């Protein structure tokens, strides 16, 4: 009896299950009928309209980007660096017939003959085979469910054709978000943390007036050195290189290194030569990069952390495409509010709205970030060890900013006494100094800086953090002076490099690229200031004895050549 009962029960259960399944099929079938409408993430969401107008809207190569867009014409290659803003479809070959007839096969046939490498690369990708591995198949399933479309292959046509305009496009992060919405949304969230971040790299690139100055001086082609990294704004392929677009590849530290290296951010050097980096290098083959970060078995699959493992960590064992959410010191270039300043640094950021305020390293928000770092480091280290190191790094930075403060005081005093040589009055104007104040309103630039530009027509001294970085980009004929340049280096290179050395635990970089050259530059600044003051005193004495030599004193405005001045002597 029991047996019959059981079988009856089994039968009815089966029937029920079949009904449910069948209704599911019907439902799925109805869903399939809905036309596919791509949805895209707007990485500029939340930015004001004017911002999108100068960074997001496509203008081809007709004009530049940002607020100074009318002061330069982009380089040809900028269309590839900033596709959203500057891409222009090809003109040599009319592709419209292939687009109209949607001949995906012909894209491949022709380009196999031209760009064989790109096609072969794509053939290794998950785009070519969305069920390449069980993991990729699972991910594909998630994408299919979220966009409501079955994916058998993602080919040239899907990414490179703008079906509305019926023309070839160069895909942007927005285009990728059609399928990879979560990743692009996470990436776009970087903008909520202020610069530096990836989303605003284009802004940082063209906001500085020395970018336009290069074009004005006929040196524009050199700007590609900036453009190639500062195009990470709306592209995914700086890390997931085309056309394999591999997640595993982007999880390797090398993925970051083409940009995150060099004197302005020696991340590759400091991580690469740290114990973390060296162990990675030695045991690379034991690291499992196929696994999503959240599932990595620490120690077993990663013996040391990678750039991605630390900087994508969001706490609680989670990882996202936001790399800056735990950033406290930013790039090591923004002064902390936690120390007393003697120099004009106390007034930083001088009312300028387009740069960050001083950082309170001990704010609740930053202490929360610190906790996440310690949580992360504690995967391997004791919390006392991790916390101790980070506190010591803060102290190093406080010291570094104290040294900076000393240097800035020396410059402040020289300027106040009008003793810079050559003085701002006797040298070329600051890049864009004659139009900057017309484009940037006083509300953005701050009254002080705005007035200085307006009053002097751009003949302003350049002190360190904001204006002075110019010294590292475009030097010329005492513009700016040696002492201002020394200060810019101290600020933007050595303090920053020392910080990177400390943060990535590379002791030699921390000392020899950081503290030591900082002290050397401070020494140079002190000596140079003494020399300027001595020369001024000599001139003064000569003037009093009737021999007028008026070239050294800053504001006195004599524009004789150096040679003729020497003859006066």
């Amino acid at each position, binding site marked *: 009896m029991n047996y019959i009962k059981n079988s009856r029960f089994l039968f009815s259960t089966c029937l029920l299950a079949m009904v449910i399944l069948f209704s599911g099929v019907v439902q799925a079938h109805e869903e399939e009928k809905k036309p596919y409408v791509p949805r895209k993430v707007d990485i500029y969401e939340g930015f004001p309209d004017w911002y999108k107008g100068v960074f997001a809207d496509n203008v081809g190569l007709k004009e530049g980007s940002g607020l100074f867009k009318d002061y330069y014409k982009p380089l040809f290659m900028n269309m590839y660096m900033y596709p959203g803003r500057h891409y222009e479809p090809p003109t040599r070959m*009319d592709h419209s017939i292939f687009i109209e007839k949607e001949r995906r096969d012909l894209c491949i046939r022709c380009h196999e003959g031209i760009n064989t490498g790109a096609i072969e690369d794509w053939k290794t990708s998950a785009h070519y085979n969305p069920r390449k591995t069980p993991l990729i198949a699972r991910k594909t399933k998630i994408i299919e469910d979220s966009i409501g479309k079955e994916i058998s292959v993602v080919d040239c046509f899907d990414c490179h054709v703008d079906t509305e305009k019926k023309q070839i496009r160069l895909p942007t992060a927005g285009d990728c978000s059609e399928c990879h919405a979560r990743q692009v949304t996470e990436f776009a969230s970087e903008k909520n943390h202020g610069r530096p971040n990836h989303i605003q790299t284009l802004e940082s690139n063209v906001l500085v007036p020395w970018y336009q100055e290069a074009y004005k001086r006929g040196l524009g082609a050199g700007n590609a050195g900036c453009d190639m990294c500062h195009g990470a704004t709306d592209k995914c392929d700086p890390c997931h290189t085309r056309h394999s677009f591999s997640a595993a590849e982007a999880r390797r530290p090398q993925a970051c290194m083409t940009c995150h290296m060099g004197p302005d951010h020696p991340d590759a050097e400091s991580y690469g030569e740290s114990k973390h980096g060296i162990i990675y290098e030695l045991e690379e083959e034991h690291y499992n990069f196929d696994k999503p970060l959240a599932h990595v078995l620490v120690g077993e699959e990663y013996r040391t952390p990678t750039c991605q493992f630390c900087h994508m960590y969001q706490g609680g064992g989670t990882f996202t495409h936001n790399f800056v959410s735990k950033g406290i010191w930013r790039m090591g270039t923004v002064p902390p509010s936690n120390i007393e300043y003697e120099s004009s640094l106390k007034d930083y950021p001088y009312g300028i709205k387009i740069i960050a305020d001083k950082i309170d390293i001990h704010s609740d928000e930053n202490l929360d970030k610190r906790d996440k770092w310690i949580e992360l480091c504690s995967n391997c280290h004791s919390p006392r060890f991790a916390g101790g190191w980070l506190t010591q790094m803060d102290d190093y930075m406080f010291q570094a900013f104290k040294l900076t403060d000393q240097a800035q005081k020396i410059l402040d005093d020289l300027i106040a006494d009008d003793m810079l040589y050559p003085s701002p009055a006797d040298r070329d104007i600051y890049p864009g100094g004659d139009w900057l104040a017309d484009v940037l309103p006083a509300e953005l630039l701050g009254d002080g800086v705005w007035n200085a530009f307006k009053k002097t027509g751009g003949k302003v001294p350049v002190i360190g953090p904001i204006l002075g970085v110019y010294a590292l980009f475009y030097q010329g004929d005492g513009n700016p002076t040696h002492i201002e340049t020394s200060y810019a280096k101290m600020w933007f290179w050595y303090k920053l490099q020392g910080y990177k050395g400390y943060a990535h635990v590379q002791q030699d970089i921390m000392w020899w690229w950081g503290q030591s050259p900082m002290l050397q530059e401070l020494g140079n600044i002190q000596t140079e200031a003494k020399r300027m003051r001595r020369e001024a005193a000599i001139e003064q004495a000569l003037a009093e004895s009737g021999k007028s030599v008026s070239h050294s004193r800053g504001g006195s405005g004599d524009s004789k050549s150096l040679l003729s001045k020497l003859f006066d002597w």
Partner: protein
Amino acid sequence: MGYTGRKKEVSKSINLCWRNILSGIIIAVFVTTTCLDNMAMAQGKLKPVSEKEFKKGKEAYDKYCAVCHGEEGDGNGPLAHALYPKPRDFTKGQYKIRTNATGSLPTDADLIHVISVGIHGTSMIPWDILELDQIKSILPVLKSFSEAWQYREPESPITIGREVPSSQQSIARGKKLYEEKECWKCHGETGHGDGPSSYDLTDEWEIPIQAYDFTRASKFKGGATNKDIYLRFTTGLNGTPMPSFANELSDDDRWSLVHYVKSLAEQKEEHGHEE
């Protein structure tokens, strides 16, 4: 952008080595015989098309073909520099993929076939995307690029001999012929296209050319069916070092050779990657 249109450089140096003299004599004999043969019918070989029809064809040519083959048909279009193999230069009237005897101009059907199916391993796609009428309209344009079309007429397609079925015997026979006829000198002993002469091959335009790698299976430029390969052996590839074996080898032998070179691709699959 500093792109400047460059004219294709034509080598004008006269190098009086024996090879040039020999080829000079051959060309002279060839031209003389052809001229004698065709003297009487020198005019009107090219079926005249109306100006309107020609214009229509030229528009299609300019839109779809000129980007590689050049507006003047010299194979020097704006994208030519990026391509290898280079796009065909139509000004010599030399066409590789034909169904008629070596040296002949292609038939209209040959041209339509190549345009419609494309050339494997190159950027010449199958232009089946165009209407047949459009493809046909392009032919007079192609012919206008070379004087050859005014003086000569395409020969009739050759007769294709009955195919010998592929068997161990025919493959073995093909292998023997491959050795005897020195195919290996260019195409290599294992068919990888790496024979001793393969490094110095150039085509009639003095552009370096590679001997075909038979292990690449389906990438035969003129198509990968047995018949396609048979035709290449029989008609030769004009403008390239690949001669015709129509006179040297019997029909059966050419079919045997087809089966042998096809077997070279299968060998690769069995052995896996070699390099």
